[in-house]
């Protein structure tokens, strides 16, 4: 009550003050309100098209409306000078449990009560205020594919989120965005300890096979019902099964299967299941993928490569190599790169440096940049919105101090939907 009275008393003064301020605030408010923003005179890496030296980007209503050597600056537009800076699409982190736990603490991404929890949705574990989201944003990451962890054979449903918003609904770009599977040590260790299926790798394959066969029967019933309904026949709709629904979507080609696997035998199992059930598959991890480049390429399976061996190794990642991304790309495989070590140059907040390691391992620098932008967007089916700098796409943009894969270059300004969400403080 008190504060309201105070406001009334001061109303006249405030109004005059506000009018004066408007003149100064308006240009800044422009971006806050989705008004026009121009990023001028930067090294613009469009990813989808040519790189433009001294390029400009016009942003209107949070969307890129023009990219070129010059753009018309609308009246009142905020102009960001990017001279000597590199301008890239916002980076995309892949297959991470970012935002579902607090740092080193146990994440909420593994519902380990059963090895098959296809019914789980990662969005229900997401905390929009998780510290890691801001950290990722500060490093130039503007979107991420978040997914259940590697402890369950069928972990649940993934989502693509943007690094902004107070609610999961605001953050979500695509949810669900596929089903997450995991083969190898994750489930084996988790359930082996409890002496429950699966305690072996063949047990893991069986869990997937059984679930997909049952989902197939469920799908057949659904289709049968639809057919009868269309024909005007009387029919009982089959009961909704939350676990089989997302798997049925995989069998129907409406959704993507993400298989996290590292060792050569686990990678082959993922591909065997892919062949058997005609899945649209993406491999995650793929430490020994360099041994199977031809097999992966011939099936047209994209791979999200990581980790890069900076953090602790497991038995299943002991033979990983920084050459994997380069070898796979050389064989024609579509490659994205993720970083999710806790510390070091492979950590979540150093995605460009992980891409730089892939370059050291033989991946072309342009491919490495694509691997953390447009390729990732394509793999997740969100490339109509993000992943490159072209008219019509969301204005998710990061301005780097220099060449983005160089260790001395850092993100200086990050925009999501045309709004500045991070700006590096000036050096004292």
């Amino acid at each position, binding site marked *: 009550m008190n504060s309201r009275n105070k406001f009334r008393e001061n109303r006249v003064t405030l109004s005059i003050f506000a009018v004066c301020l408007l003149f100064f605030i308006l240009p800044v408010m422009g971006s806050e309100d989705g008004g026009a923003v121009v990023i001028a005179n930067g090294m613009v890496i469009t990813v989808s098209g040519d790189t433009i030296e001294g390029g400009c980007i016009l942003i209107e209503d949070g969307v890129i409306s023009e990219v070129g050597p010059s753009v018309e600056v609308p009246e009142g537009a905020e102009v960001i000078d990017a001279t000597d800076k590199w301008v890239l699409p916002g980076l995309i982190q892949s297959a991470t449990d970012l935002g579902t736990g607090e740092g080193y603490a146990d994440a909420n991404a593994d519902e380990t009560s059963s090895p098959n929890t296809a019914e789980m949705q990662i969005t229900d574990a997401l905390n929009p205020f998780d510290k890691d989201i801001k950290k990722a944003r*500060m490093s130039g990451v503007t979107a991420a594919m978040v997914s259940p962890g590697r402890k369950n054979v069928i972990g649940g449903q993934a989502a693509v989120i943007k690094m902004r918003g107070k609610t999961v609904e605001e953050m979500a770009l695509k949810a669900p965005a596929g089903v997450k599977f995991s083969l190898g040590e994750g489930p084996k260790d988790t359930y082996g300890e409890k002496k429950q299926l699966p305690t072996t790798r063949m047990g893991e394959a069986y869990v997937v096979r059984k679930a997909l066969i049952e989902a197939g029967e469920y799908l057949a019933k659904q289709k049968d019902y639809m057919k009868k309904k269309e024909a005007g026949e009387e029919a009982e709709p089959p009961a909704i099964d939350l676990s089989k629904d997302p798997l049925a979507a995989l069998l129907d080609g409406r959704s993507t299967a993400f298989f996290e696997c590292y060792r050569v035998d686990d990678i082959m199992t993922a591909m065997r299941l892919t062949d058997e059930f005609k899945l649209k598959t993406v491999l995650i991890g793929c430490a020994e993928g360099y041994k199977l480049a031809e097999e992966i390429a011939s099936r047209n399976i994209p791979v999200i490569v990581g980790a890069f061996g*900076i953090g602790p190794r*497991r*038995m299943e990642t*002991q033979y990983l190599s920084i050459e994997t991304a380069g070898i796979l790309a050389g064989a024609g495989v579509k490659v994205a790169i993720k970083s999710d070590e806790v*510390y*070091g140059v492979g950590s979540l907040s150093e995605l460009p440096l992980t891409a730089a390691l892939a370059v050291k391992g033989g991946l072309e620098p342009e491919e490495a940049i694509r691997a953390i932008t447009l390729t990732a967007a394509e793999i997740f089916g969100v490339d109509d919105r993000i992943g490159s700098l072209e008219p019509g796409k969301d204005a998710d943009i990061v301005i780097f101090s220099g060449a983005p894969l160089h260790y001395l270059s850092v993100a200086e300004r990050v925009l999501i939907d045309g709004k500045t969400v991070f700006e590096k403080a000036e050096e004292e």
Partner: protein
Amino acid sequence: MERITKLISGLALGALVIANLAAGDTAETVLIRSATIHTVTGGTLLDSSILIRDGKIAEIGPEVNGPDDAEVIDASGKVITPGLIDSHSHLGLGPSGGTTEDNEGSDPSTPQLRIIDSIHPTGMAPHENSFRDSVAEGVTTIIARPGSGNVIGGQSAALKLSGGTVDEMVIKFPADMKMAMGKKGYGAKGQLPVTRMGVAYVVRKAMVDAMEYRDSLERYERKKESDPDVVPPKRDLKNEAMLKVLNREIPVHIHCSRIDDILTAVRLADEFNFFRLSLGHGTEAWKVADLLARKGVVVVVGPAMIVYDEDNNLVNLAKVLDDAGVEINIMTDADVVQQEFLRYQAATAVRYGLDPEKALAAITINPARLVGAEDRIGSLEPGKDADLVIFDGDPFDIQSSVSRVFIDGKTVYEKEQGDK
């Protein structure tokens, strides 16, 4: 017959291995020319040369000539640094998250344990070749430490990553006493220490026990003068080890991340007059950087190089501490970050603003000084061990590769065509 053939071939193989080892033992005389040389203690020399003889650095400077039989390496366009030193490592002690050999979880106070009795000399699964891989990235010396599961973990060792046995590798033992603040696993068993004050008590008790042990030894020495038959006090390995701390013969390294633990470490160091205190990790050390600078406490930063303040703004820990006048070391905490990524740990600090020369010192001369081995390692100066790394560019650049590594003047790694 078959067995005999096998035996003979086995013997032949053995002879071959021994012959090779012997050849490797011959120190090379090597002249490395035309390089950019980061001496660390004497600035950076451009277009200069280093002469290695008898395992030591013989000469260094713009005009150095070697004997006719010296191997000459043209290092134009290349960059030379001292062999890198990791100030805090668990290399050869098993995978973190798995069964490790560095935490004797049966007693919170184990100062009598010696880390060299646990180290596997080439590396353990899942990274059997971790020693070799670390050398290939320029790491020539590590300070190997007991883990942080115990309040007093045991005695650390500085060892070079070259040699067939741990005993051949060790250059300083005991390097310091490893302690660790913070929560321990004993609480779950209902054993002391359940709390942080319990942790501090364990240290205090060990120090007081050592004092009494010292007193009993002194009493014995005095009595012996008048009574040659006096019975000496029973040897106590724990107290013997802590006596080295009490007598300021060895420094103390304390694992601590939280501010309360950092302050407790400093309090204990004051109370018992520790000879040189270093903190491991020091995640929140930036909050009391001035205090640490005033007290001369060294902070060994890592594996988290970058931490965040209450508003989640980035804090470049090494830089903030250095700016305040705190001496910094940088660690991997291998294998939390794999041993071979030591130079990238330093690069991360440089990325966010630390002076590269200071970052290099933090992985060379500073850790050497920390354990009192600066007369042998940590910088490129005549008379020091010829431990050095030839890089094909900026040592902190991810795209740069190690061309060749020397330990004690011997080539321990040389890049082959096609190596990444």
